[in-house]
Structures are given as C-alpha cells and as structure tokens.
C-alpha cells in the first residue's frame, strides 16, 4: 500500500473521522437530495407569515409565509458547492505558489510571499466584502474571493513543507539527473507534501463554509427570493421568537457541517503525523 493510502486507511480507523464523515454525509445528503423531496416549491406562499407548524407546513412558514422545511431542504446546494469550489481553487493556487516559491527561491519566493503577506494583512471577511461591494454580488466572484482569501495561508504551509522536502537527497538526486523544476515540483515534492496539503484542505474548507455562509447572511450571496441557508438566517432572525425553525435549521446544518469537516481534518492530521499509528521497531 502506498504511503498516502496508509494515511487514509489509518485515518479511517479513527472514531473521530468516522463520526465526522457521518456528519458531513448527513448534511451533504440534505443539500443534494433535499430539493427533490421538498414538499413545496420553496418560493410558494403556503401559510400565514411566521406561523408555527401546521398541516401542509410541517415546520411552519417564514416571514413571508413560505414553507420553512422546503426552503431549508433547497437552501444547502449553493453554500456547499461554493465552499468546495473556493477551497479547491484556493488550495490549488496556494499550493502551486508555495511550492514554486520553495523550489525556485530568489525573487519568485519574495514575490509570492510578500504578496501573501499583503493579502494576509486584510481580514478574510473584509477582503471578500470589499470585492463584492465593488463588483456586485456575483456567485463566481464570491468563489474567487474566498479562494483568494484562502490561498496565502495555504501558500505559507505549502512553502514550509516543500522547503523541508526540497532539502532531502532524493530531490538532490533529481536535480543531478537534470529533471526540470516543474517535474521536481509535481513528481518529487508534491507527493510528499500531499499529506500536509490534505490537512490544509480540510482546514480551509471549514473556513470557506463559514465565509460563504457569512456573505450569504450579509446579503451579498444569493439574492431573494432564492433559498439559501445564510440568507434564511438573515431574513428570519427578527421573527426568531415566533418562528425559531427557520433560523435554527440552517444554523445547525452549517454547524454540523463545520464540526464534521473539522473532525475529519483532525483525524487526517493525526494519521499523517503518525500519532495514532503504532510505532515501528
């Protein structure tokens, strides 16, 4: 079995990883299958505004009288898709930049890391809101901005890991054999850095979920009347005493997703570090 296969197998044996995966799968199922089983059109008015559970609206109606359960079941796809896309893009770009900086050094290293410093100086939420405020609430733009907010942190980790790997003799051997920098990055350094990047992916996914949900809550994400967990919390928070479900459901869903991802990430990092693996003689 390959080294990474063993990391994953070791992680899969951990209780926390199993629990985390179960939580993640639960939320993903709700988001993916939800729209298909929703009892009502999420935009249809079915009951008096902010009314409690009644026949026809199992969990009551929101501030405008739309079915809470249907809106909850339909509101997860966007946040999940956007978070995952933003994380993939951010980790990809950050890893590429960080590894390039580590291997090439010199001015490339300076350029990448000083750019990262500038981006790191701006709080992530502010960075995303600035961009959205300037260019308008486009979903692709939010994905891009969240990716940009993630990338410098990933670049730091990737550079540190790659620097350590680039010191090892097998990278020297590849240099002596005349391999190109690109091939050294992709074939020598990246495979050994993958464990660290996998853990980083989990961390960044948690942050992305929170960021995308916040942007939605602040009204810069999906626009009404679309159903979205972040937006739902915002629309219904004033009526929370009369109709708690329309706030509690999306909050719980985002919370469970975040905790699940965190548990998996924690397990992965333990497995990668060999903490819970029996030592060798």
């Amino acid at each position, binding site marked *: 079995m390959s080294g990474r296969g063993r990391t994953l197998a070791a992680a899969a044996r951990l209780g926390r990883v199993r629990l985390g995966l179960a939580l993640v799968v639960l939320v993903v199922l709700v988001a993916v299958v939800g729209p298909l089983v929703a009892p009502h059109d999420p935009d249809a008015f079915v009951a008096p505004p902010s009314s409690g559970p009644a026949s026809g609206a199992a969990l009551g109606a929101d501030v405008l009288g739309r079915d809470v359960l249907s809106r909850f079941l339909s509101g997860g796809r966007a946040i999940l898709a956007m978070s995952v896309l933003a994380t993939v893009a951010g980790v990809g770009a950050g890893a590429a930049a960080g590894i390039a900086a580590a291997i090439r050094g010199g001015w490339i290293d300076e350029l990448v890391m000083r750019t990262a410093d500038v981006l790191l100086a701006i709080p992530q939420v502010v960075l995303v809101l600035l961009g959205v405020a300037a260019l308008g609430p486009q979903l692709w733009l939010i994905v891009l901005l969240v990716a940009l907010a993630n990338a410098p942190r990933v670049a730091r980790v990737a550079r540190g890991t790659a620097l350590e790997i680039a010191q090892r003799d097998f990278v020297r051997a590849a240099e002596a054999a005349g391999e190109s920098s690109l091939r050294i990055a992709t074939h020598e350094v990246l495979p050994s850095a993958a464990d660290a990047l996998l853990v980083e992916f989990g961390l960044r996914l948690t942050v992305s979920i929170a960021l995308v949900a916040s942007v939605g809550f602040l009204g810069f994400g999906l626009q009404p009347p679309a159903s979205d967990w972040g937006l739902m919390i915002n629309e219904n928070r004033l009526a929370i005493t009369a109709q708690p479900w329309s706030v509690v459901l999306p909050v719980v869903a985002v919370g469970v997703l975040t905790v699940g991802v965190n548990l998996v990430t924690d397990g992965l990092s333990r497995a990668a570090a060999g903490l819970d693996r029996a*030592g060798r003689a």
Partner: protein
Amino acid sequence: MRTRDPAVPAVPAVPAAEIRGLTIAQPGTDRPVVDDVSLAIRPGEVLALVGESGSGKTTTALALLGHVRRGARVVAGSALVGGRDVLALPPRELRAVRGRAVSYVPQDPASSLNPALRIGTQLDQVIAAHLDAPRDERRERARTTLADVALPHDRAFLRRFPHQLSGGQQQRVAIAIAVACRPAVVAFDEPTTGLDVTTQAHVLATIRELCRTHGLAALYVSHDLAVVAQIAGTVAVLREGRIVERGPVASVLHEPEHAYVRALLDAHRSVGRPRSRGTRGPAEASPAPAPSAPEPPAPEPSGAVLAVTGLVAVHGRATVVDDVALHVRRDECLAIVGESGSGKTTLARCIAGLHRPAAGTVTLDGVPLAPLARDRSREHRGRVQYVFQNPYASLNPRRTIGDTVDRGLVLFSDEPRRRRAARTADLLARVELPAGVAERLPEELSGGERQRVAIARALAADPDVLVCDEITSALDVSVQASVLGLLDELRRERRLAVLFITHDLAVVRSVADRVLIVRHGRAIETAATEDVFTAPATEDARRLVADSPRLDRGPAVPPPSSLLAPLQPNG
C-alpha cells in the same frame, strides 16, 4: 586515584544494574523486540551491547531508564538499578531515579542539547533537579564535571551555546550532563557514531576514564565491533532481540562461539582487508595507459577520465574546498578520505554538479563540465553519476523501486518504453536484488537494499564515473561488506572510474587503488592505498591511521594527559 581496571571485572561485586529476563513486545510484529535478555553490570565495568540495526539494543538500554517506546510493552522481566525495578516505579519516583541513579547519553548530541540554552544552564538544570545545594556549590559541581570529561571549565565556556562547540565537545557536554549527579549507571547509545575517528578516540578515552575513576557502570550500545574492542571489558551480542553470545571482549572478538558472531567479525574484517591485486586483471589488458609502477604522488592526468583542477568551493564566507586537484582513471577507485568538516562531501558535490564551485574546473575526457548539473548536457550528466550517503533519504518515498530505476532509463537511455521494464529488471538483478522489489516502496526495504537501488539508478545512466559519497556509513557492517563487494565487481565489469568518499580508513583498504587525504579543504596527501597504511608520508595521514579503531588492536587509549593534545601515533 581509585582504580579498578574494567578489563578485569572478575572482582565479585554487587551489580550496579541488572536486567533480568526482559521481554518487550511491539504490537504488529510477530516476535518480541527484546526477547528474554538478562545482563548485569558491576561498578567500574563497561558492558558493550552489540548488534545490528533492529536488534533491540537501544530498546534494552532505554529499559534501564524505565523508558519503553510508545506502543511497546514490557511483557516480562525487570530492570534493577540499585536494587529497585525501574520498570515498576511510579512516574514521580522514576523522575527522581533518572539522572541521579541512572542516566543516558544519546547518539546525536546536536539534537539532544537544547540549542537555546547555555552549556552552564543545561548542566545546572540537571544538578539542581537532584541536588539540594546552594548555587555556588552547584557551579563548582558543574566545573568539576566538565573537568572530568576533559572540557575547559572556565566561565567563558559555561556561557557558550551548543552551536559554538564542535561535535566532539557537544558529545562531551552530553556526557557531562549524564554524569553530573554521579549516577551509578550510564547507558551510552552509540555516542561516537557521528564523530570522526580522532574525536572518537578522545571521547572513548574520556568514557573509560570516567568509569575507572568514579566506579561508573556503563552500558555501551554500539554496532561497531572495533569501537567495542577499544572500550569494553565484557560484551553481549544481540541478534533479533536475543543475546547470542556474551563474555570478556577479548575472547568474544577472537574466539567467538556463535556462528552469527563469527559472520559479523568476518564481515568486519573483510571490510578492512586489503584488496588482492589479482582482481585487477582486466585493467592491465586495457588500453588505458596506466603506469604499472607505484603511483607517482604528483597528479598526472594522462589517461584520466575525470580530472579536477584548482577547485575552490565556499559555504557562505567559509572556504570548505581549497584548491584541490585530482584525477581518476577508468577502472580505478580513488578514495577521498577526511574527517567530518574536511570538505570531502562538498568536493564530491561540485564534481556531480550539485554545488557551484567558486573556482576551478572539472573535466570529463578533457572536456570542461558546466558547474551545475542542470547546465550540463544529457550525455555529461549521464556519464557522471552520484550515489548519496543516506539511502533512507535519497530515494523518493512515494515512488516504487521500479519507477525510480525506470526514471533513470527514461532520462539517460534511448530504450523504447516496452523494453524498459526488462532493462529495469536486469539492473535490479545486477545489484543482486530479487525481482519482486520493483513493485515495492523504499520503506519496505532495508538500508543495504536501498543503497543497492540507488546504485542501480546510477547504473541506469550507464556512467563512466561513479561518485560514491560515504555510501556505506549508514549501513550495518555485514551489509557494508556486500555493498563494497558489489561496487568492486561493477567497477571491473563496467570499467568505472569510482570516486569513493569516506571517513573510514578501514573501508578504504578494501576498495581503493589510491587515496587522497583531505584536511580543512586541502588535499594533503595522495598515495597508493597500501602506502598510506604502511608508510604514511604526512603527520595527518599517520594520525588518521593511528586513530582508526581496529579489532586486532587493544584499547588504543591515549593517556589522560594527552586528551586535548594532538595524539602520538601508537600501536
């Protein structure tokens, strides 16, 4: 001076430390790491625990400190220090025993000393932890302890940081920390492995002296039989967790009873045995205009496949290679010998194009090579191949053995894809590895097997020059002998010019035709191999030969007065 000669441990005395029937198991392995090991060490005695890697010697030594590695479990037995079983002590009492009654000197002082604290502080920490004494008294104890290990003990030295000391001094500080509270027992875990021979000789003398004067009982863990011959009174040989032979060092090393010990000694001797001249047959018949008379000492590059002239290399502001010239012919092995820090590895890396020299040229068949490998032509890169010191680091851990060798063929041969698998199998077979290894990852192979893979990878480029940087120093002695044998065969078979970088003179004797001795970056002597041993021309060469530990020579320990002075060559 209280003296009790450790070579005569027959004085009946209560053992300072005793291990009884110790068995330690590790989940996931089918046999115990340590299997029913019993031994006893009397005060003033040095007991050597010898074995190859994985034999359980460190695990046994750590048991004396009541330490068991994470995941491992004591199945049976006890480790008695001063009559108490340290393996059964609660953590609080165990802390009181460690450092006070039993202590440990680890292999690598560079990583065992705290780089952020001064030497004096680190010594004082251990003294203050165990002795309830005022500051002045503790400082006095620190000074006498440093004097015990033959280190300067003035205020300036106490204020130094570990990085301001040499490797040998760092190891002495580690020993000082271990003996500061006058423990009855000290476990030394290969304390001289990272040191060059001259420093090693001094550290060994210090340890012997400590045991003699303080009645210290020492457990000396080592893989090196020659070192053991110098330091120990009694020896126990471990194999796969079991003691296969024990006894006074002279009888075990000269009349071993167990077959394994005999094999170990044979391997050790064959590494140091002069190469028989008869094996040079093909060279004489070759067109290479090699002079048959003993080598003239002056560089004489005619017929050389690789030549280096005026090479200078720097690390930062330090000049580590200073105006070195050398040459090597086809079917010839030139050993480059020097202590650690002599610049020999940097020299090798300049030749391989891994380090940009500050001046000088490297020529291949008279054609100058570009300074860095990436600027050299494919042909030049292929013809000069480099084998790294540490086979645990030089193979990509995520790539199978087959792919590693195959990559060499992709880069340097014109073999079509469908024939490469067969060529890879041929190469692996040539370095005497079973065909099945192609599918394996490096971590599934032993050190010796990995080094063979590294050699196969170099052979894939069909080189003319093979630069071998201490390729056996990370290997067990029985493995060393077979890797050196393979290298010698390959050199003859492929008429390779071999540059063999090493600090180990014993190895030189079995592989090299000529020797180049480097010191402080300068080439100080070049001569035919046997001449270096029988008639060294310079003081440095004499010293290297004298300090090299050998099985057939008793403890070549310098008198304590000369610990810090240059050694006289002695027998």
